[in-house]
């Protein structure tokens, strides 16, 4: 059964500053969903509300009908995994140990044979088996990102949330990661939510696109519906044109001159 995540009249304010309000979103179909929008529009904040890292000031989020505030962190961790944008390790463990940490909600103190198997599979999916015994902090930013995605997959969630999972990756790895996420979502029947700044990568691999702008959900639909020249220009303030690559919209950006950046 696919997990159902529902945000109702959700609003977050930091003191006087209102991030957004009146957000109503529902995710209940397996697939890769990309959240787009300019910097500081509250995309990460929205993710934090789903797994209770942040308590919203208005409205609520439910997972399979239960308000997240009534769930413990542990209950949420069994259903929702989160992959942060940047690694934040002080004392590094090996890559394998780092990925095995994703098994924490499922296993107790000891690592079972099943945990090892799952972690090894996730390394293979991310094409980083050869890094398994390396120390996490000896790796590059892109490799960190792949390890963290593997760790998120190892948690075997119903909802996998990734905050800019491809921000440090080269073009091959960007496409590999997004393609793999899209495939995993369908194979496992899970919802995968990514925050993305590369409109073309999002367009190519997402099943659904949600665009945040100016304190609200500006647009929610298929890539064809959401990624249009008009929307991009309105939301990002950049002159854009659309062509088609692989049957998906492909955005071309034009320099709008000095007045665009006033």
């Amino acid at each position, binding site marked *: 059964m696919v997990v159902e995540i529902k945000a109702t009249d959700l609003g977050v304010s930091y003191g006087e500053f209102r991030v957004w309000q009146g957000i109503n979103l529902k995710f209940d179909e397996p697939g890769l969903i990309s959240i787009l929008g300019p910097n500081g529009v509250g995309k990460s904040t929205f993710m934090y509300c789903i797994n209770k890292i942040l308590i919203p000031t208005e409205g609520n989020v439910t997972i399979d009908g239960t308000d997240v505030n009534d769930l413990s*962190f542990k209950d*949420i961790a*069994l259903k929702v*995994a989160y992959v942060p944008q940047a690694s934040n390790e002080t004392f590094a463990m090996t890559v*394998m*140990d780092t990925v095995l940490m994703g098994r924490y909600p499922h296993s107790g*103190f000891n690592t079972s044979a099943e945990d090892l198997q799952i972690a*090894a599979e996730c390394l293979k999916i991310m094409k980083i088996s050869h890094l398994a*015994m390396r120390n996490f902090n000896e790796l590059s930013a892109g490799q960190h990102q792949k390890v963290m995605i593997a760790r998120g997959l190892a948690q075997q969630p119903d909802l996998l949330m990734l905050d800019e999972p491809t921000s440090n990756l080269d073009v091959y790895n960007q496409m590999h990661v997004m393609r793999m996420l899209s495939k995993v979502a369908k194979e496992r029947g899970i919802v995968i939510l990514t925050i993305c700044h590369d409109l073309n990568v999002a367009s190519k691999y997402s099943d659904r696109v949600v665009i945040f702008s100016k304190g609200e959900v500006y647009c929610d639909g298929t890539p064809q519906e959401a990624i249009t020249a008009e929307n991009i220009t309105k939301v990002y303030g950049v002159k854009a044109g659309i062509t088609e690559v692989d049957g998906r919209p492909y955005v071309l950006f034009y320099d709008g001159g000095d007045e665009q950046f006033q």
Partner: protein
Amino acid sequence: MKKLHTSGIRRSLEQTNIRLHDMRHHAREKNYEGMTEEEVTIAQYKAHRWSKLIFVFILLAVFIILAGAELAVGDYDIDLWSVYSILIDHIFLGKPIETLEQTVVWEFRTPRVLTAIAVGIGLAMAGAGMQSMMKNPLADPYTTGISSGAALGATLAMTLGFTLISGTYGTIINAFVFALIPSLFIIALSKYRKPSPAMIILSGIALMYVFNAAQSYLMLVADPNATSAVYAWTVGSIDGTDWGDMPFMWAVVILGAIIMMYLSRILNAMNSGDSYAKSLGINTDRTRVIILLSVSILAAGIVSFTGIIGFVGLVAPHIARILIGADNRILIPLSALVGACLMMVADLFIQAVLSFSMPVGLITSLIGGPIFMIMIIRQKNEVW
């Protein structure tokens, strides 16, 4: 047995280290023919885990040798093998303590060695826990102001005669209770503000200044003898303990060890940052308070008996981390062993090399500092 062949021990340790490195390298390069990619990963990981356990066994052997040497060396030298047979005879076979040799080992020296071990284990585990919880390599068991709290408690007893309970344990109980004030203060504050590492460190420093000021005042107005006693206390020594002190001190250490081991996997997750740890199902704010309290009780339980022994709690976890990496599940027990060994080496240095008595707290810093410096320069795995 006046002179110990430490250079020999060091050389064999180094050789074992090189051999281990070869073994690990070999394991990595081994031909995993006919195995799937996942099987190779798992096989490598298991080999890696075993190679870490070998360090534990090596240190365990070093630990036993050092403990024996500690019991053997002193004004009345005893053969190393006699020491072990006396211990085995008395502990496991229940033979009574009768001869002079047996009395020296069991009545005079064992409490001292047990204290050194308890100090090493307790402070090292507390340090490892504090460093991982705060995500800060500079953290040690005293970071929250435990040491200055304990010092003020002891100073009150020694200069004014103010003790929370009367009797021989007055100073110890004073030090213990005052050492816990900083963490209780942070717990009270955590109702109003998130107990972040920065908040914990800053409120620890704030309290430290207050405690130090109060202590300095008390020492200024006290008579010189009391001031001197306070000063000796703050340096940290294991000379003053006897069998009567062991039950409480070891109860604290064993309880602390159980809690720290139970928390080790949570500490691993907290090392990746609060928001990730929360997404793994860990209530980070509550857990941080629990870890803080456990570490404080552990450190306070030791400091109150021995005074402030520095450095072990900071350095032992780092040495362990250089040897086996940052996985707290194995780091915490290995830190404990390293800490115990460091304490015994420092005490052996006093007993065997120096001809005069010196507080062990001075030696841990004096020898530990340079050793640590060398290890930082020579370490190959960047673990922090």
